[in-house]
Structure formats: structure tokens, C-alpha cells
């Protein structure tokens, strides 16, 4: 139906009132995540794939591996490229067309988490230094938007990468010849993104779509497996105080551990 993204004022008041009492519309605690389901290997044709359900938000990630040229400034490493599509069927607010600032930001935040945590052992993807390397395409496909696309996309990307197989090969005069068999994509880290929304000066984790429509600002903190922070992104026009940021960082570390268990085992 003709829908709009403006949350009714009455509901905004309701959400804000509940949050000042430490509660949320769906009964969750301020830092609780919705139910998470992770499935891997669903697209057999892709080298790796995963599908994550975070509440009703649904994101699918497909990994394709190709042989290409390394970047000239890092000739001994493979290439990682992350792309996100907010396809129109996922939300009445998504339009067909080239990536807009939201899908680009989503892709770059997911990319940052993987790249900065050195999640993929990029040196092992080098085939012929300076000339040939594996290119890892991470394609994030949002299928249903019910809030917190960043965390769902980051989890799906990690699950898909852990599911990814590289074909075996041998080099003949710098030509890559494919051999039968596969090896797992060499992974060294498991970055997890934890996103908070600020509503009425309180921080809530894993905002639903309704909560996002009401939030003043958004903060994503990506934590790698040893608890170090490897990426941060503040979004929306509002602001955070230093205290809120430090509190968020601490909560993110705890939450990341729980979320990682769901992704890495599943």
C-alpha cells in the first residue's frame, strides 16, 4: 500500500516513554538483540554464501572469487571488494538504481570491519606478486529491511566468508590453471559489528525499523575476536557524548562475543 516512513507521533512518544523506563516496544532490554538465524552455503553456485535473519531483517551475502590484478601499492596481497544492494523488494523506501549513499555507507562499513581486522589472510591470496591475485567479491543483498542492516550484513558477510572455498590451482608461466579440489578461504579474524541507536539520551542496541525512524543518532562499533575495536561509524545527524561513546564501546565488546558465537558456530 502507499506507505510512508514517518513514524506516527503517537508511536514516537510511546517508544520514547518506554525507553526512558528502560523498556522497548517489543519487550526487549536496551541492549538485547532480536532472534538471529544464520544459514550458510545456500547459493551452491557461489564460492561462499550465507543468509542472516535478525528479527525480520533479512540479508543474503554471496561471495565470488575471480583471478585479477593486485593493487599496485600492495602487490603481494589479494583484493577485497564489498558491494551492497538495497533492492526495492526489501522496503517501500528502496528505489531501483545505482547505489545511493545508504547502500554505499553500508558496504564501506562492512568492508572496514573485514579489512581493518585483517579477517582474510590477504597475503595467501597472492598468486603472482604484482601481477595476479585472487579477488574476493562480497555482495551484500538486503532482502527485507526491518532495521539494523549494518549488523545483519556484517554477520552475513562473516558467515559467508567462513563458508567460502578457493579452487586449487597451479601456476604455469604465470598462468593460473585450475586443479580439482578446494581449500577454505584463509580467515584469521572474526569481526562483529554492534550498532546502537540513541533515543532520548539512551543507547539501545540492534534498533528495529520503528526505533530507527525515531532515533537521533546511530553508532556502529566493530569488534574483532580479541576484543579490540577495528572500525567505528557514527551515522545520522544527531550527536553522542564522550561518555556514551565509551559506554557503547564497552557494551559492544560484550555483545560482540555473544554474536560471534552465533555466526562462527552456525
Amino acid at each position, binding site marked *: *500500500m*502507499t*506507505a510512508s516512513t514517518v513514524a506516527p507521533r503517537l508511536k514516537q512518544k510511546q517508544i520514547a516513554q518506554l525507553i526512558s523506563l528502560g523498556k522497548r516496544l517489543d519487550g526487549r532490554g536496551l541492549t538485547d538483540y532480536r532472534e538471529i538465524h544464520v544459514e550458510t552455503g*545456500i*547459493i*551452491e*553456485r*557461489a564460492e561462499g*554464501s550465507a543468509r542472516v535473519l535478525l528479527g*525480520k531483517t*533479512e540479508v*543474503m551475502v*554471496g*561471495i*565470488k*572469487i*575471480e*583471478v585479477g590484478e593486485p593493487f599496485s601499492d600492495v602487490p603481494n596481497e589479494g583484493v577485497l571488494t564489498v*558491494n551492497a*544492494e538495497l*533492492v*526495492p*523488494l*526489501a*522496503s*517501500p523506501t528502496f528505489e*531501483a538504481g*545505482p*547505489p545511493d549513499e545508504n547502500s554505499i555507507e553500508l558496504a564501506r562499513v562492512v568492508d572496514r570491519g573485514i579489512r581493518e581486522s585483517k579477517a582474510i589472510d590477504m597475503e595467501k591470496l597472492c598468486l603472482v606478486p604484482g601481477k595476479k591475485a585472487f579477488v574476493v*567479491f562480497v*555482495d551484500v*543483498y538486503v*532482502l*527485507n*529491511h*526491518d532495521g539494523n542492516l549494518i549488523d545483519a550484513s556484517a554477520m552475513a558477510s562473516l558467515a559467508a566468508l567462513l563458508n567460502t572455498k578457493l*579452487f586449487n590451482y597451479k601456476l604455469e608461466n604465470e598462468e593460473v590453471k*585450475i586443479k580439482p579440489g578446494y581449500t577454505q578461504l584463509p580467515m584469521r579474524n572474526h569481526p562483529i559489528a554492534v550498532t546502537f541507536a540513541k533515543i532520548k539520551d539512551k543507547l539501545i542496541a540492534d534498533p528495529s525499523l520503528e526505533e530507527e525512524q525515531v532515533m537521533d543518532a546511530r553508532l556502529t562499533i566493530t569488534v574483532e575476536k580479541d576484543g579490540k575495536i577495528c572500525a567505528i561509524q557514527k551515522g545520522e545527524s544527531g550527536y553522542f557524548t564522550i561518555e556514551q561513546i565509551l559506554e557503547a564501546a564497552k557494551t559492544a565488546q560484550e555483545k560482540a562475543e555473544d554474536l560471534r558465537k552465533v555466526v562462527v558456530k552456525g
Partner: protein
Amino acid sequence: MSQKTLEKLINKDGIRADGRKLDELRPAKIEVGILSNADGSAYIEQGKNKILAAVYGPREVHPRHLALPDRALLRCRYHMAPFSVEERKSPAPSRREMELSKVIREALDPSVFLEYYPRTSIDVFTEVLQADGGTRCASITAASLALADAGIPMRDLVVACAAGKVEGRLVLDLDDAEDKVGEADVPLAFMPNLNAVTLLQMDGMLTTDEFEQVVNLAMNGCKQLYVLQKETLKAKYVTVKEEETEE
């Protein structure tokens, strides 16, 4: 990225590479109502094809100047995910996707009572998550269910299937490997209760006799998929009838 050595796709007993007989459909399963935002949705798996269809509407048209005064505007977008094919595909729409978007729209158009909702748009989206030949047909089969799931009044469901010629034999429901080496591929979409063909295309070469046989093969495939479509719609509500009989 692997290269298969050229083998025959159909053996001398008429059994295909995936074990099917010449006139056999790939196994298929369909679900409806799986996306919470879309007004209607359906998901189909047919062989290795995995396709998601969703409908938004009837709703106000954006941009406004495209609105039609006497009927709804039916719009359709067929799109493939970058990871859906062997070699990664750029997410930007290709010429093939644009042509398929058009023919899919034209296959669905006659089935919807567009004249009931002037000045609105009905937007149909199909996303191919994994492709293995015959995606335009599977997209139509799913999109039609998504329209029904959205509660949009329709004259009939639209069902689609392809048939063609591979290695000299006339076959039903070609997969990607068969389509690549085959002599002809004929996708067909059909409204069974009204006996109306709403999509028909052909690549390749066939005699008129062969063409007639291929069309009949495709129709048979369509009839089987139509049964599955109806079962899928009914399955959602079968509990209603069960509870009724308790009264």
C-alpha cells in the same frame, strides 16, 4: 570458474545429465508470504534456480506524471544478484535484464484487473539469487503468486515454462548447460483457465512440426507448475478449513 570437458548432455537412453527424462520438469518448490515489507511475495526453487518475487501496490505512482487515468500502471523489474551466476555479474542492470523486465511485465499484465485501480502503480520485483536456465519463466511463476498473495484481483494465475531442442531431442525445462549448447529454447507463459499465452519467445531454429511439439511440451510443464502454484496458495489457508469443520 571450472571448465567441464564436453560430454553429451543426453545419453542414448534419453536420460539427461541430471537424471531427468526428456519430458520431465526439474523438481520445484514454492512458498508465499515470506517477506514482511512487501504487500505480496513468493519464493521459488526450480532445479538450481532460486528466485524471490515481491509486489508493492496498488500504491501511489512515483513519479506522479507516470500515473494513468483509467488503470493501474504495472511495472516490473527483473534483476540478478551478482553472485547468482558462474562469473560474477555487475549489479547494474544489463540489456538482457531490461528486455526480460519488459517481457515479464507483458506476461503478467493481462492477468491483473488493472482497471480497478486507476492512478496507482503495481510494482513487481524479481530477484534471481541463483540462476540455472529458465529464470524468466520461474520469475513469472513466482511473480504471479506474489500478486495473488498481495490480494490483487486477477483473472487467472500466470504460469511459465520453457521447452526446446538439445542434441537433436525435444526436451522440457532446459537448464543452463542444456540452453548453452541446445539448438532451440522456447519460453512460454500461460493463463490455463483462460487458455491464453502471454509470453512466447524463441532462440534457435526449429521446423514448424518441432515447434508445435515443443509448445505442447511447454504447456504440459506449465500445467504441472500451475497445480503447484494453486497448492502453495491454498496451503497457507488450509488450517482455516480444518478449523471450520470443527464447528
